C-alpha cells in the first residue's frame, strides 16, 4: 500500500492508505482527528470543511494521492489550539451550536472568510457560508457570530496600532 506524507496542523504524518481514500476518512480513521465530520460524501453539506493552504475545501472530495506533502492542511483541531480563535470565541458568546455536529465545518468556513474579508457584508457571509448546512437551524446565530468575530478582530488590530 502506498505511503503518503501529510502536513496536518503543522505536524507531519505518514499514512499508509489506498490512493483514492478521501481526506476526511484519512483524517478521521488514519490520523485520529475526528473533529472533521462526514455528512454527505458529495461536497453538498460542508461538514468536512478543512483548509488546504488556507483555503476552505470539502475534504470528502480530496483524494489522499492529490495532496502534496508540502500542502498545509488545517483542521478544526489546528485553529485555536492554545487560545480559542476569535471565531470560536464568538461562537461561544452567541451560543451558536445546538447539536454542534456541523459546526467544525461552519467554523472552518468562517475563519477562511474573515481571513480574506475582515469586514464582511451579509452578501459575503451568504457566499462563504452557503455550502455549510445546519439541520438544527443555527444560521441566524452563525451570521451574528461572524459579525462579532470580525469586530473582535478589528478591535485587536486597532489596539495593536
Amino acid at each position: 500500500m502506498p505511503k503518503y506524507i501529510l502536513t496536518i496542523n503543522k505536524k507531519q504524518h505518514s499514512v499508509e492508505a489506498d490512493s483514492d481514500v478521501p481526506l476526511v476518512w484519512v483524517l478521521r480513521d488514519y490520523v485520529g482527528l475526528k473533529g472533521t465530520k462526514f455528512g454527505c460524501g458529495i461536497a453538498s453539506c460542508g461538514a468536512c470543511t478543512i483548509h488546504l493552504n488556507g483555503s476552505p475545501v470539502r475534504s470528502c472530495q480530496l483524494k489522499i494521492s492529490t495532496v502534496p506533502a508540502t500542502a498545509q492542511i488545517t483542521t478544526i483541531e489546528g485553529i485555536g489550539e492554545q487560545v480559542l480563535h476569535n471565531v470560536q470565541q464568538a461562537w461561544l458568546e452567541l451560543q451558536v451550536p445546538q447539536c454542534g455536529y456541523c459546526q467544525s465545518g461552519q467554523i472552518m468556513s468562517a475563519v477562511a472568510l474573515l481571513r480574506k474579508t475582515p469586514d464582511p457584508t451579509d452578501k459575503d457571509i451568504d457566499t462563504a457560508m452557503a455550502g455549510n448546512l445546519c439541520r438544527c437551524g443555527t444560521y441566524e446565530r452563525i451570521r451574528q457570530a461572524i459579525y462579532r468575530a470580525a469586530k473582535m478582530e478589528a478591535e485587536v488590530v486597532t489596539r495593536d496600532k
Partner: protein
Amino acid sequence: MLAESPKTNRRDFIKTSGLATLGLLIGLDAKANLLNLSANNAAALPVEINPFIVIGADNTITIINPRPCMGQGTIQSVPAMIAEELEVDLENVTIIQSDGKSKYGAQTSGNSSSIRRLWLPLRKAGAATKEMLIEAASGKWSISPTQCYAENAKVFRKDNGRSFTYGELVEAASKLNVPQEPVLKQKHEFKILGKPARRFDLHDRVTGKAVYGLDIDVPGMVYAAILHSPMIFGKLVSIDDSEAMKIPGVIKTLPCERTMIYTTADSVAVIASNWWAASKGRSALNVTWDENGLDTTLDNKEYMGRCYTAAKKEGIRFEEFNDFQSKFETSQSKLDLTYETPFLSHVPIEPETATAHVKEDGSVEIWAPLQGPGETLEEVARYLNISTDKVKIHVALMGGSFGRKAYMDFIKEACFLSNKLKVPVKVIWTRDDDIRQGPYRPALLSHMQGFVKDGKIKGYHHHMIGESILGQVFKGLADDKADPWIGEESSPSNNKYMFIEAHKVSWTNVKTIIPVMWWRSVNASNIGWGQECFIDELAHLAGKDPLEARLDILEDERFRKVLTTLAEKTNYHQKLPQGSGRGIAITRAFGTIVACCITATKSGHGVKLDSIVSVIDCGMYVNADTVKAQTEGNIIMGITAAIKPGIVFNKGVCAQNNFNNYPILRINETPKIQVYIMENAEAPGGVGEAGLPPVAPALGNAIFAATGIRKRNLPIDITNLIT
C-alpha cells in the same frame, strides 16, 4: 447576548463514569418516591435504584442526566432543575449521562418531554437533599432548621453567618430520612431556571473535541457498510462479492438484516478494516433482489391517489359537536378544500451510526448516538435474546436526530453483525441509506370543510387521511377506529377554537408500506398545515382579518395573549406596501402554544421571505436561550419542510438520495428571525418541537396575502408560484 463566563473551558463538565459511592446519595424510584441511598442507609433499600444526586465528603457534587442530548441542551437543562433547588452552581457540578438501566426510570429524549415530565420530580429531589443538609447543619449547631439557609453548596446560620460546606454535612445528612414533600421554590426565587444560561458543553462543540456517535473508536473494531435493498423490502436472492473482495481492506461480506419496529428487511454487509474500503466494497457488490410488487406499492402517486379517493367519502368520526354535515349542507357561505403534506426525511447531518461489541460470553456493549438508552437496552436484550443485565449502553452525543435516532434499526444492525463476528463492529450509513430507507414523516391529506356567518367562522370539519404511525409501526390501530394521536391533536379543543354552530374531526387510514415514523413534532406539523391555512381561508370568506377572525373564536386567554403579542411584535396592524403580505398561524403541541408571523414580498413569479417572528408560550422553562434556539431551529426546519422537496417514491424507488436532490435550507435563503417568549407561571410545556407546526401555514398565508395566490399542497416552490 449572554453574559461572559470566565469558566467556559471546563473539560470535566460531562463525565461518563466514575460515580462516587460514599457520601450523600439521593435517588428516585419508578414512582418518583425519593430515597436515601447513602451507604449508611442503603442496606435496607432495593438494589435496582440509583442515585440522581451524589455529594461526596470532599464536596464534589454529581448529578445524573437521564435525557440524552441531541442539541436541545438537556445535558444541562435537566440537571439545572436539581441544581436550582439544591442551591448549587451548575459550574461546580459534574454531570453524568445515564446508561439506560431501568433504575434511572424513563430515559428517552422525545415527545418534547424532558423538562415538563421531570420538572417536579427532579426539583423535589434537589429540594429534599437541601432540606436534609440543612437539618444536618442545624443538628450540629443545635438550632432550628428555620435558623439556617442553603446557598452555593453551603448551609449558613442566619444569626452569625457561619457555614458548613455540603461535603462537611454529608455524613450526618446520610443518616436522615428523605422528606417526601420538600418545599419547592417559587418562580420569583429562581436563580437558574427561567434565565438565559451559557451551555458549558459548547466549548467541546466548537473545538472538535465533542464525541459524537460517528467518532466512537473501540480497540479492535471493524467497519461495516451495508447495502440495503433499493426498494427497502426486497428479498435477498444472491450475492456476488468477487469484485468487493478484491478491494484492499475488505475482510468479508455477509447477509445482514435491518430490524425495524414491525418488520425485518434483508441487507448485505461489507466488513472492512476501514469504512472507506467497506463503502467501496459495497459499491462493488453485485446483489440480486426479489422486488416483486414493490414497484407498485412503494409509490407516492398510488398512495396519494387513494388518499384523494378517501377524501370523497365519510371518514371515521373521532368527535363531533352538533350535526356538522347537515349545518354545512344548508350553509350559504362555505368552503370545501384539500391540503397536502409530503413525506419527509429527518436528515440529521450525522448519519445513522452505531458500534456494538457482542462478546463470547454473550454480553454486549453499545456505543451509539441514541435518544432512548432505556429503550435501546431493552430492545437490544430482546433482539439478542439475552438478559438486560448483559447489555451495557454508552450514550454518545447525537449529531442531530429530530426523532430518527429513537428508531433503533441501525443499532440492531451493528448488534447483528457483531453477534456473527464477535468483534466490535461500527456501522455507518451513507446519506443515500439515510434518505432512501426511511422511515419518514407520513404524507397526509387534510380534507377541510367549514362555513361562516355574520363575519364569523362558525363551523369546521377536519378530515385527516393517510397512514398512521400508531397503525403501521405499532400495530395499535383497529380498522374501525380513528387514530387517537391524530384525533386529539386535530380537535378544535386542542387549539381552543370554539366553532359555535358545529365541528367535526374525522379520520381515514389509507395504508402504505412506505415506512413512516415520528419526525420533529410528529403529527402536529401535518395537522397544522390544513388547520391554519383553512382558518385563514375562512377568515377571508367571512371578510375578516385572519388575526381578528382567530381572536373571535379563541376562548383561551393564553392563546389570545400569544396572538396579540405577535401582533404587537410585528406591527401587525401597520399596512405593508403593495406586493408584500403577512401570514400568521397559531398551534399548540406538547403543551406549548406558538404563533408565527411571516412577511413575504412578490419577487418575479414567486416571493422572497422578508422576516419571521415567532412567539412561544411554553409556561415556565429552564433556559431562556435554549427556548429561543429551539424555536429558531424549528422555524428553519419548518421553512425547509414548506419549500424544499419532499420524499417521492416513484415505482418502488425513492427519487432523492442526497442533499443535492433533497436540499435543506441554507444560510443565504434564511430571512431575519425573531423569537419572543411569554412570561408566566404556567406548568412547563415542550420546547424542542412546538415551534415547527405554525411555520408552514404562516408561510402559505403570507404568500396569499402578498400575491393573492393560494397554495394548498406542500412543498411550495416559492420562486415560481404560477405553475
